[in-house]
């Protein structure tokens, strides 16, 4: 099974590592990035889901303000296949540097996730930390992303028991 590794580095100007960490790990704050439900356990081994179930996984390592490692998958991936996503937070004179590494991505989803992390995580996170709200451009981007997921069938479906 061949997979790909994604690596990105992003600076959050003027924000402490703890504030950046909390945007990912606090359910209410994570929900504010996408306007879609996120439920994040803050326990090692605990589960999380974001983007209304499009992304699911469980926590492997939690060091508040320093590191998050999660088993992470998206809808439409190979059954039971998880990547390992590592968020390393480093305080710098200008703010917080986040080094993000994700190993084990199915190759056919790599480019989508590469773009997705920038457009639907790092950009909204930068805006929330700077302005406390999302810009109209980012809100539009998030909406388009949701519509594309629905169109591509990459959205969790709930099957009614009565159907």
């Amino acid at each position, binding site marked *: 099974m061949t997979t790909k590794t994604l690596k990105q580095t992003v600076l959050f100007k003027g924000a402490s590592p703890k504030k950046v960490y909390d945007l990912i790990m606090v359910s209410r704050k994570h929900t504010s990035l996408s306007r879609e439900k996120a439920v994040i356990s803050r326990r090692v081994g605990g589960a999380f889901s974001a983007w209304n179930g499009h992304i699911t996984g469980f926590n492997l390592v939690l060091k508040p303000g320093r590191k998050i490692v999660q*088993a992470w998958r998206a809808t439409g991936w190979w059954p039971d296949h998880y990547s390992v996503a590592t968020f390393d937070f480093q305080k710098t004179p200008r703010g917080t540097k986040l080094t993000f590494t994700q190993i084990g991505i199915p190759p056919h989803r790599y480019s989508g996730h590469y773009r997705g992390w920038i457009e639907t995580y790092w950009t909204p996170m930068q805006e929330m930390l700077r302005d406390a709200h999302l810009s109209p451009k980012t809100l539009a981007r998030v909406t388009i992303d949701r519509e594309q997921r629905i169109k591509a069938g990459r959205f969790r479906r709930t099957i009614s028991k009565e159907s």
Partner: protein
Amino acid sequence: MRLDLTFTEHFTAPVQNVWLAITDRRMLALWLMENDFEPRLGARFALRRADPMSGWRGWVECAVIELEPPTRMVWSWSDGAGEEMTSRVIFELQEEGTGTRLTVHHIGDTDDAMAKMIRERWPIKLQALASTLGDER
């Protein structure tokens, strides 16, 4: 062929987290193999590879034969090399500073080809475990 392998690794994670990584079915799948493991004394389970190396059937039949959370676990290990040839995998965890020292012993009998594979694969698997626990190697 007689197997008598010992691997020792230090992880920055505390013992409870390393124990979870070797006893949680989902976490085992991330660094070892797909499995139906249960952390229960006597539980039988299989470790499976979707794309096994040539010359191997692709699964290992195991059972939990000792379980002492969070410091010791022993599995029986039957890799299909021969009906009479079985081995044991012993996991031992010990606090080391603020982290954990994990020792893995693999002891028993298997054929030459399987012994070579096991000897080569454990270091790779333990490196994957380190990544799963957030440690750089």
